[in-house]
């Protein structure tokens, strides 16, 4: 590598001397070399700079997956700005919230979203594609330019803000520095053993740190990213075959569909060297099918949270023995398991996962109180790292005898029933494995005798019954885990704007009250 890579701009630009003519991005219908993307980056960067966008300014990017989304983010970095990528499935209302909350000075948007901006906004706007909007600059109309001097920035400067939607409250913006992003790319590249001849399929949004890492790692090694805007398993399999994709990252809902499809079609995907999962646990019945359906593919199970950028992974050679574990810290990262007020947990024990080191984000944009609550010194680690702040994940994990970690539950979700601590995730896993339920939410309600009792809210699969599901639970669960009530939903469960189950709402609507007594089972 001829240029020392310290910033997001460097990640891209270090490829230009030697790989200018190499394919960097593949969109449906055409591909783009590193040099072609550089020209687009310069056009947008020149536009932003000419309109007074300065280093440190926030620029919102909400553009459909494709070359222009990537070029928009890189252009913001090129002028020393901070890009705030917003998922295209987010609503107009959420987009406007992020624009306000981040104090954005510019926005690069699709035509529809640009036309729907609130009256009287003071944003510099670039319309990436779609319907043209009167009075706003369109990407197609940008002149060809070449920026003479890139803005240099420090690797400790802010590079990006990633908004995360929790199940409660407004989304919060996690602040990432150039150093966070570059060290994350190096770490992921090392443990996934990525190479310049890799072609990663990008299905996940770049507004999600896990999806964004596919792009940063390919820039680090000079590889290729194939964009797949349609998150349909049938389309994904087609793209993998058509473009000889070597790596693919997905989240559990997508794995469920992908594996079911391969199971039904028997189709082989010989080009695929590696696949990764993050963003939740893949159900065990799906995990069990993966090695047979992807015999020549390394399977990485990972865990992460945006506030600590990258966290842990299970090396593929351990997959067969430890299916479902989240493994241990990724390279250059440090994680500890803490027993509050007691110390560091050892093998066989469980506690809260905390992160320290290079990946720790700068906290939440404009939320010093929330930041201080999430990222703070850890008394149990004082002897090791002193007052260095750590990210409290809120996740309870167990350490096995080899030192590998297993996710147990969110700290605030554990159900305490008749002296047992029960993980709702574990109960949900079992209910899913019955094959009788689609959406499942498990929660605890206060109970005079038990402390808390286990409750299941579920939409049932066709032909399934509450009685059948309960009989299954009685057969496979220890007695303390068997639900005291199963609340059958006959309509879809409410979801958050990002599509996840709105768990608090499901729990509220399912919880027995005086005028809505508990269903007898």
């Amino acid at each position: 590598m001829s240029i020392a890579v310290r910033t997001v701009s460097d990640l891209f630009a270090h490829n230009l001397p030697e790989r200018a003519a190499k394919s960097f991005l593949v969109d449906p219908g055409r591909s783009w070399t590193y040099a072609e993307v550089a020209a687009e980056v310069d056009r947008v960067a020149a536009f932003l700079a000419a309109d007074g966008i300065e280093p440190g300014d926030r620029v919102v990017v909400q553009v459909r997956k494709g070359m222009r989304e990537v070029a928009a983010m890189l252009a913001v970095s090129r002028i020393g700005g901070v890009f705030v990528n917003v998922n295209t499935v987010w609503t107009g209302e959420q987009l406007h919230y992020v624009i306000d909350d981040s104090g954005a000075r510019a926005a690069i948007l699709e035509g529809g979203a640009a036309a729907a901006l609130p009256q009287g906004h003071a944003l510099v706007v670039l319309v990436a594609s779609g319907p043209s909007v009167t009075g706003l600059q369109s990407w197609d109309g940008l002149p060809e330019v070449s920026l003479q001097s890139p803005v240099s920035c420090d690797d400790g400067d802010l590079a990006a803000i990633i908004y995360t939607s929790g199940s409660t409250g407004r989304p919060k913006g996690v602040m990432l520095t150039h150093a966070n992003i570059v060290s994350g790319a190096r770490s992921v590249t090392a443990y996934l053993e990525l190479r310049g001849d890799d072609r990663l399929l990008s299905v996940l949004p770049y507004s999600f740190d896990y999806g964004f890492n596919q792009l940063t790692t390919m820039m680090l090694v000079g590889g290729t990213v194939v964009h797949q805007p349609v998150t349909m398993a049938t389309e994904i399999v087609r793209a993998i075959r058509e473009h000889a994709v070597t790596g693919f990252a997905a989240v559990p809902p997508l794995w469920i569909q992908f594996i079911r499809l391969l199971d039904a079609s028997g189709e082989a995907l010989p080009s695929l060297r590696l696949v990764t999962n993050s963003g939740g646990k893949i159900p065990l019945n799906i995990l069990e099918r993966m090695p047979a359906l992807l015999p020549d593919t390394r399977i990485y199970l990972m865990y992460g949270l945006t506030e600590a950028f990258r966290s842990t992974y299970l090396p593929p050679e351990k997959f067969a023995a430890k299916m479902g574990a989240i493994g241990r810290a990724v390279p250059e990262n440090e994680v500890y398991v803490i027993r509050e007020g007691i110390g560091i947990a050892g093998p066989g024990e469980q506690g809260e996962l905390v992160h320290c080191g290079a990946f720790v984000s700068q906290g939440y944009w404009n939320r010093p109180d929330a930041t201080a609550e999430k990222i703070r010194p850890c008394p149990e680690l004082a002897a090791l790292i002193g007052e260095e702040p750590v990210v409290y994940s809120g996740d309870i994990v167990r350490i096995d005898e080899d030192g590998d970690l297993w996710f147990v539950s969110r700290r605030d979700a554990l159900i305490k029933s008749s002296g047992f601590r029960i993980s709702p995730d574990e109960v949900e896993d079992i209910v899913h494995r019955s094959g009788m339920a689609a959406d499942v939410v498990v929660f605890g309600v206060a109970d005079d005798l038990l402390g808390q009792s286990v409750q299941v809210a579920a939409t049932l699969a066709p032909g399934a019954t509450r009685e059948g599901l309960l009989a299954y639970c009685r057969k496979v669960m220890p007695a303390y885990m068997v639900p005291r009530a199963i609340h059958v939903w006959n309509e879809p469960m409410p979801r958050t704007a990002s599509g996840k189950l709105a768990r608090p709402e499901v729990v509220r609507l399912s919880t027995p009250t005086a005028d809505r007594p508990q269903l007898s089972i």
Partner: protein
Amino acid sequence: MALTTDRIIQNLQAISGYDGVVDPDTCLFSSGMLDSIAMISLIAFVEQEAGIEIRADEVTLENFDTPARITRFAGERV
């Protein structure tokens, strides 16, 4: 209850959180409007409403990209 295009449109916001205007020919997936999480809920909704079981290989743009296509697909399967 038979699955209708109107019922799909009425339920799309609950299923996906999407708050924009949807008509029978709005592209839900090829437009990037819905993601994989919303897709799972949509499939579950169609299975439940139409009383059918949908195979993974049937979830294609041809069958699922618009509310009208979903209704046609479900109608042919019943």
